[in-house]
């Protein structure tokens, strides 16, 4: 069960992404809708705040699935780390935000967009923190499709060897890649959880759209080894015609599609 505050925020995020989609030719909407509750829970519940004005954290967040950038942007906007004008100028020549997170932009800890880069970088960060006894946890959101990259498996093998219990990876597991279902293209890919366990990771499996549960399960972790949270999600979650339909990986809705999506989100709030 989502709490009302989380649920309201996530509906608001989805509406904001739809609104922005009307200003740019095409946008990765469905990949962002898939991980919104995860990203929101990490920022609002899981990462430890260092200061509230301005919002700063002790912990770190890397969106390894860089094509989910919109999810991170809207949460950063909500936190006041990014400005409304930053998002309004998305992908414009006058703006600083593009289709993928860019290192140096407030709140962005690494440039991503090519898959399989975030986890090795996070391992380097977590290792430095370990060696120098810095109390900080590095959070990574990765997609299940991304896990087809060899660099992910390298990094999965390495992280437990280095004793990085200050590293937590959330896998946005929506069983989709660009063209088709992952389970169809790579039938042996699932279940992910057994593979992570056999590599020495602590694992948790959850419903990735249940903000409360994401947090509740997370705090119960043992925390002796790196953690992998398999978050089962729906690509395009929240708008029925975008759900589980690959065409919404990278596309902007027409005006009428936009109106009906908005209406659905409003109705969803009442249920």
């Amino acid at each position, binding site marked *: 069960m989502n709490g009302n505050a989380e649920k309201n925020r996530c509906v608001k995020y989805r509406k904001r992404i739809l609104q922005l989609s009307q200003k740019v030719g095409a946008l990765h909407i469905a990949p962002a809708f898939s991980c919104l509750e995860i990203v929101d829970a990490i920022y609002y519940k899981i990462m430890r705040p260092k200061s509230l004005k301005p919002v700063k954290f002790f912990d770190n967040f890397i969106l390894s699935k860089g094509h989910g950038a919109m999810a991170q942007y809207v949460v950063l906007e909500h936190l006041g780390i990014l400005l409304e004008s930053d998002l309004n100028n998305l992908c414009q020549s006058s703006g600083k935000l593009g289709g993928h997170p860019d290192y140096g932009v407030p709140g962005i800890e690494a440039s991503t967009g090519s898959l399989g880069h975030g986890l090795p970088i996070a391992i*380097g*960060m977590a*290792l*430095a923190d370990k060696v120098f006894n810095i109390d900080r946890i590095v959070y990574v959101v990765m997609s299940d499709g991304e896990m087809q990259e060899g660099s992910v498996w390298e990094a999965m093998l390495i992280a437990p060897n280095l004793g990085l219990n200050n590293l937590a990876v959330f896998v946005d597991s929506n069983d989709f890649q660009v063209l088709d279902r992952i389970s169809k293209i790579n039938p042996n890919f699932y279940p992910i959880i057994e593979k992570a366990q056999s590599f020495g990771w602590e694992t948790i499996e959850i419903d990735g759209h249940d903000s409360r549960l994401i947090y509740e399960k997370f705090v119960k972790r043992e925390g002796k080894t790196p953690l992998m949270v398999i978050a089962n999600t729906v690509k395009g979650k929240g708008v029925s015609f975008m759900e589980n339909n690959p065409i919404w990986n990278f596309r902007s809705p027409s005006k009428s599609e936009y109106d009906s999506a908005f209406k659905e989100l409003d109705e969803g709030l009442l249920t």
Partner: protein
Amino acid sequence: MRDAFARTLYQIAKKNPKVFIVVADISPAASMALFQKEFPDRFINIGVAEQSMIGMCAGLAMRGCTAFAYTIATFAVYRPFEQIRDDLCYQNIPVAVVGVGGGVAYSTLGGTHHAQEDIAVMSALPNMSVIAPCDPLETELATWACSQSKGPVYLRLGKAGEPVLTADALEPFQFGKLRYLRKGKDVCIFSYGPIMKMAMEIGKKIEETGQTVSVISVHTLKPLDKEGITSALKAHQKVIVIEEHSEEGGLSAKTKQIAWENNADCRLFTFSLKDSFLHTYGSQQDIWKAHGLDACSILNELLIS
């Protein structure tokens, strides 16, 4: 060269507690044992995983550490190319990518172990610097320079056993500046890396004909000392480039570009590895020769011209 690198890195790590070396199951010889023993937390053998080696070094450097990634040059450059491009260069993160056995140093191991176009590939990347020292002394200085860099660097090393060539250099080593090892008036030779030894021998042979010869170490290939090259092109009637790198995008190509841009009126002769995989074995010198890089062929060509 790899021992000089390991010794120097140990010295740097003794002074700077934030120096890390991440190796992909290739370690710079016995001299690294001391580093490993004294700083076990900062020597990481990541296993045969070059992509993660680069990504991890990026993460370490993003935490303020000085990170060196080390393996055989081909594996350091080609396998994790996108990690070098995106994690290091695009984000402009100061990590030193150290490639041992650059050029055809692994002469018996075949083309999979030959980094003959690495300088062209690394030079093409924005923010990347490229250094290729010619002897153990330059390797020490280049390693120090890497540890001070504000952005990514590719350090191309030979293997082991290279002779000292720069003990009597006329100028100090300075990152981004070429240095005269000898100074003459008529002919000038540009070179870098272990093939410098041959360049110096060729210089001596030319001097036997009564001409005086400058020999210049162009150890920093990027940023290239364009001013230094331009003035050398102006000061000599004949300029020769000798390099252990493909003719595509190496010092030869770069020198031709600078010569053209600056209306140089000297004669320019370039000797590089062929743009070809040769499938030959033998000593490093044997492979050079198969590419047309031996003192005899070079001198003959210079005489005919």
